[in-house]
């Protein structure tokens, strides 16, 4: 009897040892996961430090705040006097993104409403997969569509000399931003509890009344988050806008004017500048501005979406 009990307690002690090993594994995994988690932050800070360092010489040296932000003369390679004004580039990015949103917002909102509120079963699954596929199209392919398909089309339809312009890039960018916006907007609509819809329908509201009086107001923060993410996407997009805008420095007077985007400028010129030259540093300063703008937009989007989850 006693021996048996002793044996049992020995076994228990052995178990205890094993638990100890598990404890170490657990700790190790915890540390790993923690490192993985903060690595994103480390990378972001690293990138920011890097681009700031590269651009700093310019900011401290030749940089003039008024010239940089309020002059439309971007002539970094001028022989006599190089000027670094990005106003026209800002106007280019803003006009293309603005038009893209005008196209993408109704489009993605409509699709999201259809998927979330009307489509059922197969149709729904099919649409969701299609939207995800659209999101996966590489931006150079979109740029190619802008260049090879939209360009002649715009020239034909509107009888203008060039088809690479705000209209072209805006449409392309709108189509590019729409899938992710649709996805997020649909999530926001789905997050509205069904009992709200049921309550409204039980009072005799039609499907449309339920949507615009109950579902949309209840989902408005999530929808705003979707739009802001789309805007962020528009600001940051490079390849497609490089190919579809015409890449001409210009403050656009109409959608048929060619423009040049901030991102496209960096992409096109960085390879041809001497490392450390004022031009090189000026491009990095554009990078800093872009970084700050997209960071702020994403931060707002994030805060807004988080607010949705809480409410």
């Amino acid at each position: 009897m006693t021996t048996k009990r002793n044996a049992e307690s020995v076994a228990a002690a052995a178990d205890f040892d094993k638990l100890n090993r598990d404890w170490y594994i657990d700790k190790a995994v915890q540390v790993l996961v923690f490192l993985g988690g903060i690595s994103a932050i480390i990378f972001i800070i690293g990138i920011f430090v890097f681009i700031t360092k590269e651009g700093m010489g310019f900011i401290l040296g030749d940089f003039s705040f008024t010239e940089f932000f309020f002059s439309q003369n971007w002539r970094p390679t001028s022989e006599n006097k190089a000027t670094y004004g990005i106003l026209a580039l800002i106007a280019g990015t803003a006009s293309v993104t603005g038009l893209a949103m005008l196209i993408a917002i109704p489009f993605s909102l409509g699709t999201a409403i259809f998927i979330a509120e009307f489509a059922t079963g197969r149709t729904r699954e099919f649409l969701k997969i299609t939207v995800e596929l659209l999101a996966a199209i590489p931006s150079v392919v979109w740029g190619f569509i802008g260049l090879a398909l939209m360009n002649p089309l715009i020239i034909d339809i509107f009888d203008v000399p060039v088809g690479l312009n705000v209209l072209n890039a805006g449409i392309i960018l709108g189509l590019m931003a729409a899938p992710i916006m649709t996805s997020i907007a649909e999530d926001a609509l789905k997050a509205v509890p069904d009992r709200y819809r049921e309550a409204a329908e039980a009072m005799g509201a039609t499907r449309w009344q339920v949507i615009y009086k109950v579902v949309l107001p209840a989902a408005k923060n999530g929808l705003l988050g979707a739009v802001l993410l789309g805007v962020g996407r528009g600001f940051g997009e490079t390849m497609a806008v490089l190919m579809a805008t015409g890449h001409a420095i210009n403050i656009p007077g109409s959608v048929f004017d060619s423009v040049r985007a901030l991102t496209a400028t960096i992409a096109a010129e960085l390879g041809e500048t001497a490392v450390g030259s004022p031009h090189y540093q000026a491009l990095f300063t554009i990078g800093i501005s872009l970084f700050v703008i997209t960071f702020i937009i994403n931060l707002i989007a994030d805060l807004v979406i988080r607010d949705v989850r809480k409410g």
Partner: protein
Amino acid sequence: MLATKQQQADNKMMAISTTDLSLWYGTFQALFDIKLDIKQGIITSMIGPSGCGKSTFLRTMNRINERLDYVRISGKVDVMGQNIFAPEVEILQVRKQVGMVFQRPNPLPISIRDNILFGHNIHSAGKTGKSEEGEIVESALQQVLLWDKVKDRLDHKATALSLEEQQKLCIARLLPVKPSVLLMDEPCSALDPKGTEAVEELLWDLRGKYTILIVTHNMAQARRASEECIFMLMGKVIEHRETGEMFLTPQHQETADYIEGRYG
């Protein structure tokens, strides 16, 4: 011939009158040939074990069950003498006529005022003036004894109210469109005893003005808060009588067993 005439006259007195009402969820039959006549202006309670089809019956009365596309219904339902499944009848009108209160209070995530005005706005054609809106809100909230408590925060979100207040609000928001029948599916089950008592008192106040059909799992509540009582079992109506009588001398063994707590 005479019998049918007599029957028609009776039907006129009935708020709800069903014949051979059956309902299927897909292939699963939830209601079997329900024949019920529910009198106007009184409170009728509906009891029965879980899953016997009480909610299903209620949800058929204002056609909210038809949100589900796999629901199939046969038979006839008259509300205030009008067949609600007749082809010329508009589903939205049925839902206006027959208000529904759910088990979990479900005010819309908008202001208290907008909750009250919601039904009114979707059913009235023109625009309602501000002062008239104010009157509608006050009168609805007065009827559910909520006015004094919330009159200073009509613009607050309704979802911030206590559960009892939310449930009262859910009753109040039905009133501006002047429904004839109020359906209540376990309206007190999310409330504490005090809230339950308050809502019961309210129902008693509303009696006469509206026909009330209330589902409850609470035997005591059925007993003290209703005038007639319906006992359902497995999708069928077993017994429908005056509440006091039913609890005192149930006619069926199943009813007796249930009342005495021998079912789940």
